[in-house]
C-alpha cells in the first residue's frame, strides 16, 4: 500500500483517500469539525489545516506584530491546506503539529468560539463537545472578545425529535449532509453568512424523516439536541456497554449508555461497524431503549384478567411446573421467539428436545416499513437465531399453534418473549389453556394470554446473541442489572427444565449456543467492534 509522511510517521493510504481519511484509518487524529467519515467533504470549518511541506511552497503575505518595534511589519507564512480535502499522494510530507499549523488551529478555535454563548452548564453536549475538547488541546486561552456576542435564535423546534440552538452552531453542515446523503431528504440547509449563519428547516417542512436523531449524533457541538435526551442526564455520569439494536433484522451495533447510579439506560448511540450499520441508526432503533423501562413484567403473574395475581418469580416458576406436569410431555408446545436472544431460544429448544416434544412454533412481530438505508422490513432482531436454535427453519407460526390447540394435538404451551403478530382475540384457545407459560421481559399478547408469566431480564440486562439478516451473529453485553428477583431468560428456562426433571446441564451461555460457527462469528464481531 502506498504511504505518505505525516509528522515524521509513514501513513498508508488507499487511492482516492484524503490526508484526513488516511490518518483516521491509521488512528491518528487531525482535529476537525465538519469532516465525518460517513459524509462528503465540506472543508468549511478550517480546523484540519495542515502544512504540505513537500513540493512547491506557496507563501501568503501577512502582517506580523513585532514586539521590538511595537508595530505590524510585513512578513510571509506558508499557505495551509485542509487535510480533509487534500488528496494523499506518494512523497507527500505533511505536518499537522508545526508551529504555523498550531497557530492556525488556535486561531480557528478562537474564531469558532468568538460568538459562542459558552453556556456549557446548561448544554447537553457538555462533556462530549468538540469545542470543549479542542479548546483544551489547541486553544487554552481566555476569551479576548470584550463586546456582546451576536445573538441568534435559541431552542428552535426543528421537529418532533430535535431542538436547534443557532448560537452554539458552528455551521459545519454535518446535519445538512446527513439529511442529503444518508436519507436523501433535503430538509435542512444553511442560510446567511459569517457570524449570522444558521441552519434552518425547509419552509413548510419539519425535520421528521426516519433518521432525524443522526443529525444530533453527528453534530460536533451542542447546536442540535435530542428532545428525548434533553436535560435528562449529564454525559459524564454515563457509562456505556456494547449493544445490538433489537428493532429489526438489520442488527445495528450500538452503545448502550446507562447511569450506573440509578441503573437506568438513558440513551442509545450508533457504534461504528462498516459491515452492518456503518455509522448510523434509525430513530425507532434509537428510541428502542424505552422498552427496558416501560411496560415491564417485574414479578411473576399467575391467572388471567381480573383474577391475575402477582407472585414472586420463583413462585411463578413453581406454578408453571405444577401446571405443565399435568400434561403429557410430548403434548407440550414450545414457542420460540424472533425477538428473543439465540440463547433463550436455544434453552427452550433443548427443553423441547429433552421432553420429546416435536411441537415447535415461532412467534414474531409483524413486518414494518423497511427502507434501502438501514431498516429491514423484518421487525424482528433474531429470526435467523431462532431458526438456528431450533435446528431448522421454523415454518409453524402462532397461528398454527392455535389451530393445533383447537385440534387437540397439543395441551400446553411454553413460550419465550411476549410479542406476536396475532391479536389477543385470535389467541382465545391459548387464553383458555390451563398450562400456558410465558417467559417475558415486557407485556405483550402472549403474556396476556398466558396463565403463568415468569419475568425475565430484558436485552439491556443480559448477555445474548442476535443473528441478523446477513446471518451475522452479534453478541450484546449487559448494561444494567436486572430488577430484583428477575433472572436472565435462559437461566429461568434452565430452572424450569431442572424442576421438570429434564435438566439442561448448562452453567454458562456459551454452552447453550447450538452452532460453534455462530460462536466464532460472534467472537469475531466482538473483536472488530
Amino acid at each position, binding site marked *: 500500500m502506498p504511504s505518505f509522511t505525516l509528522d515524521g510517521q509513514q501513513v498508508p493510504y488507499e487511492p482516492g483517500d484524503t490526508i484526513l481519511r488516511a490518518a483516521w484509518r491509521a488512528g491518528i487524529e487531525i482535529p476537525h469539525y465538519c469532516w465525518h467519515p460517513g459524509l462528503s467533504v465540506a472543508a468549511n470549518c478550517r480546523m484540519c489545516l495542515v502544512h504540505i511541506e513537500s513540493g512547491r511552497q506557496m507563501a501568503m503575505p501577512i502582517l506580523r506584530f513585532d514586539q521590538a518595534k511595537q508595530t505590524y511589519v510585513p512578513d510571509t507564512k506558508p499557505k495551509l491546506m485542509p487535510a480533509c480535502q487534500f488528496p494523499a499522494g506518494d512523497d507527500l510530507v505533511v505536518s499537522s503539529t508545526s508551529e504555523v499549523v498550531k497557530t492556525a488551529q488556535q486561531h480557528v478555535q478562537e474564531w469558532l468560539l468568538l460568538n459562542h454563548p459558552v453556556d456549557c*452548564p*446548561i448544554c447537553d453536549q457538555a462533556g462530549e463537545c468538540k469545542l470543549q475538547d479542542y479548546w483544551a488541546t489547541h486553544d487554552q486561552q481566555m476569551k479576548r472578545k470584550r463586546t*456582546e*456576542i*451576536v*445573538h*441568534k*435564535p*435559541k*431552542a428552535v423546534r426543528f421537529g418532533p425529535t430535535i431542538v436547534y440552538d443557532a448560537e452554539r452552531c458552528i455551521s459545519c453542515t454535518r446535519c445538512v449532509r446527513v439529511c442529503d446523503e444518508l436519507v436523501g431528504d433535503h430538509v435542512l440547509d444553511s442560510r446567511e453568512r459569517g457570524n449570522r449563519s444558521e441552519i434552518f428547516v425547509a419552509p413548510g417542512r419539519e425535520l421528521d424523516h426516519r433518521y432525524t436523531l443522526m443529525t444530533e449524533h453527528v453534530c460536533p457541538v451542542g447546536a442540535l439536541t435530542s428532545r428525548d435526551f*434533553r*436535560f*435528562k442526564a*449529564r454525559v*459524564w*455520569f454515563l457509562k456505556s456497554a456494547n449493544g445490538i439494536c433489537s428493532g429489526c433484522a438489520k442488527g445495528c451495533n450500538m452503545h448502550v449508555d446507562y447511569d450506573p447510579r440509578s441503573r437506568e439506560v438513558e440513551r442509545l448511540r450508533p457504534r461504528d461497524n462498516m459491515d452492518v450499520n456503518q455509522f448510523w441508526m434509525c430513530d425507532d432503533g434509537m428510541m428502542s431503549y424505552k422498552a427496558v423501562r416501560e411496560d415491564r413484567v417485574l414479578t411473576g403473574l399467575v391467572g388471567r384478567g381480573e383474577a391475575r395475581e402477582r407472585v414472586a418469580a420463583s413462585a411463578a416458576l413453581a406454578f408453571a411446573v405444577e401446571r405443565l406436569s399435568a400434561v403429557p410431555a410430548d403434548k407440550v408446545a414450545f414457542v420460540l421467539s424472533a425477538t428473543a436472544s439465540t440463547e433463550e431460544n436455544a434453552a427452550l429448544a433443548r427443553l423441547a428436545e429433552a421432553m420429546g416434544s416435536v411441537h415447535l412454533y415461532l412467534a414474531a412481530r409483524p413486518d414494518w416499513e423497511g427502507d434501502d438505508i438501514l431498516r429491514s422490513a423484518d421487525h424482528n432482531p433474531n429470526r435467523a437465531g431462532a431458526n438456528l436454535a431450533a435446528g431448522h427453519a421454523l415454518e409453524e407460526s402462532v397461528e398454527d399453534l392455535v389451530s393445533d390447540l383447537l385440534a387437540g394435538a397439543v395441551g400446553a404451551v411454553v413460550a419465550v418473549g411476549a410479542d406476536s403478530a396475532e391479536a389477543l382475540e385470535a389467541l382465545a384457545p391459548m387464553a383458555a389453556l390451563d398450562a400456558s407459560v410465558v417467559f417475558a421481559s415486557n407485556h405483550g399478547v402472549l403474556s396476556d394470554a398466558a396463565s403463568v408469566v415468569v419475568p425475565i431480564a430484558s436485552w439491556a440486562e443480559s448477555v445474548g446473541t442476535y443473528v441478523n439478516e446477513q446471518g451475522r451473529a452479534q453478541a450484546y453485553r449487559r448494561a444494567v442489572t436486572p430488577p430484583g428477583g428477575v433472572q436472565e431468560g435462559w437461566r429461568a428456562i434452565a430452572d424450569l427444565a431442572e424442576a421438570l426433571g429434564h435438566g439442561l446441564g448448562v452453567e454458562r451461555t456459551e454452552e447453550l449456543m447450538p452452532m460453534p460457527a455462530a460462536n466464532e462469528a460472534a467472537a469475531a464481531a466482538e473483536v472488530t467492534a
Partner: protein
Amino acid sequence: MTIGVKVLKKPPRTLAEQAYLPETVKGLRLTMSRFFKNTFGPDSEKEIATVKYPEETRVYPERFRGVHRLTQRADGSPRCVACLCCSTACPAQCIHIEPGEYAADDPRAGYERYPKVFVIDELRCISCGYCVEACPCDAIRMDTGVHMPASTHRDHFLYDKETLLSLPGADGSLLTANTRPEPGDADHPGIDRDHH
C-alpha cells in the same frame, strides 16, 4: 547509655499552708467572688467563657459554611439552572437534581433549564463547600450563618427546593449581591436576534 536523673527539690511549705484550713478558705473566697461577679455583677465585668446554648449562640465567622440555601432571582424563581455542576463536584453525593424545561408560554422560558426537583441530604453533606465553588450561577450558597438544626427524624434532613429557597442568607436577603441582567430586563442582551 544510662539515663540521666535530675533530682528536683520539693518547694518548702509554710506553717499556714501545712495547716490546710486557711488555704481552703482562700480558695473558696476566689471561687465565691467569681460566682457573685459573674452571676449578679454588671455585664461588663463578667469573666465567663461559656454561652447558655441553645438560648444563646455564638456569632459564626463571616465565611462559616452553614446550611445551604438556593438564591432567588428578583421574581422569586430559583437562579439555579439545574446544570448539575454542584452534584458533580459533591464528594458526598448528597445533591439530587432533576432538570426541567420551562414551557414555551412561560415568561421565564428563556432560562431553558430549571430544577424541577432539588434535594440536599444534609446528613450526608460534609460541608466542604465544593458545591458553592462549582456553581456557575451563584445559585447555591452556604452563607445562612446557621448550622444544621438537630432532629430525631432522618427525613427532616432532606432539604427540598422550597425549603432551600426559603432560607435567607446571614444578611437576611433571599437574593445575592451578585446580580446580573435577566431575560426581560432592559439591560439583558436578549435571547434571540428579534428581541434586542
